């Protein structure tokens, strides 16, 4: 950890946070927020949280920015100030923020020193993970082994939360042609995509490499930063790149609503199914070591490693389908039936 780097990144983060709140144009706010996320990603790397940085780079700086821009594109860029009560709302906001800041500053006095190896959070549970992961699971990336094995329950329901979020977006936005055939106002039609040959060519050439990299991220998450969440988001992002540079309808042809929901289901079911398989073989739910009975030529340790790979694949499929589904719904405002 280099404190000069830490301090300069943090100062830039604060500048970006102020700028994204203050700027009048919503598109600029979205772009500055993307820069803010990218600085966050540098900050995580600097503090040694490489897996968090990878997730922030693909999710925060990548997909979130695209979602913001899609939403701004569908609504309006302008920000109009309040007609009345501007001062009152500012005062209420300031007082609440200052009060919360005061409480947190008082609490800060009792925090352990920053970057102290003896902070209570680093003394109780994590030493077990750090010392035992190679012995228990043969996975050197401790984050992966904690995510997929030691805290597998947690991750399973996180995946279910992503799936539920995808369903919620469909439930809120989706409008079917047969129910709602009368009005199709201009901003709601699917953006055609700007026909630029260079952008289209480069995007088309990039997509296979992005997807290959995503598969590497999923498969190599045991030994390097990465895993199911990051890999799934990167595959989803490759489809979103095609949707931006070509036409959203092309992606709907490739990944229809039905297949997205089906893939989301399959992903969560792979995760839960591996858990139930362990249960059927006579061990606890998600106790992968018992899988050595069915997997050829594996001992109990390697079975846990392979079990993790299985659930990472499930997570990747679910996250990919849901990211694409959320993007399609937001960019088309829920109107994407064929021949609209």
């Amino acid at each position, binding site marked *: 950890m280099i404190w000069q780097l830490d301090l300069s990144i943090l100062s830039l983060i604060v500048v970006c946070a102020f700028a994204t709140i203050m700027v009048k144009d919503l598109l600029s706010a979205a772009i500055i927020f993307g820069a803010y996320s990218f600085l966050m990603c540098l900050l995580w790397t600097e503090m040694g949280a490489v897996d968090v940085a990878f997730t922030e780079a693909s999710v925060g700086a990548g997909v979130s920015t695209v979602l913001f821009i899609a939403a701004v594109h569908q609504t309006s860029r302008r920000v109009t100030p309040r007609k009345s009560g501007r001062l009152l709302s500012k005062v209420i906001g300031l007082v609440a*923020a200052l009060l919360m800041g005061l409480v947190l500053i008082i609490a800060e006095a009792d925090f352990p020193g920053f970057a102290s190896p003896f902070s209570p959070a680093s003394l109780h549970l994590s030493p077990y993970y750090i010392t035992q992961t190679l012995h228990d699971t043969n996975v050197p990336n401790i*984050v992966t082994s904690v995510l997929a094995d030691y805290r597998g329950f947690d991750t399973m329901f996180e995946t279910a939360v992503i799936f539920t*979020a*995808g369903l919620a977006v469909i439930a*809120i936005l989706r409008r079917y042609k047969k129910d709602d055939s009368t009005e199709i106002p201009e901003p709601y039609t699917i953006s055609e995509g700007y026909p630029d040959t260079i952008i289209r060519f480069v995007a088309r050439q990039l997509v296979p490499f992005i997807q290959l990299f995503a598969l590497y991220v999923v498969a190599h998450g045991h030994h390097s930063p990465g895993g199911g969440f990051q890999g799934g988001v990167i595959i989803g992002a490759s489809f979103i790149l095609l949707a931006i540079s070509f036409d959203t309808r092309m992606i709907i042809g490739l990944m229809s609503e039905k297949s997205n929901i089906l893939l989301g289901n399959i992903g969560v079911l792979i995760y839960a199914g591996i858990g139930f398989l362990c249960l059927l073989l006579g061990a606890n739910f998600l106790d992968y070591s018992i899988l050595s009975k069915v997997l050829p030529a594996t001992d109990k340790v390697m079975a846990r490693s392979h079990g993790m790979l299985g659930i990472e694949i499930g997570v990747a499929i679910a996250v990919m389908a849901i990211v694409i589904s*959320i993007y399609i719904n937001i960019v088309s405002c829920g109107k994407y039936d064929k021949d609209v």
Partner: protein
Amino acid sequence: MGSIISDYNYWIYILLMMIGLYAMLAKNNLIKKVIGMSIFQTAIIIFYVSIGAKEHATIPIIAHGHGAVEAAIDVAHYANPLVHVLMLTAIVVSVGTLGVALAICLAIHRRYNSLEEDEIQEQLQ
């Protein structure tokens, strides 16, 4: 003075939380409120990751080679992986909540043709 300099991560996370809360309360535009919510979320993530950071520690991936005999693993040598796991999933869930929040904004815009809080309130009355 020493503690103020060394604890700057905590001060920055408090500042970012205040910015996020202010944006959620005081801003008129709903997209700006969603951005404030995201800033609030990242401030909490800074707090967690700062708690797990260790001085002179490396990333939580154990150095290994094929067939190499494992040396004794020193806990203080690796950053705390538990907070990383919790925050990794929090970031992924945050894109889910962001999608739902933006979907609600779009549904509001579809109905009231505005994303400004006071204009929507006028139409509600």
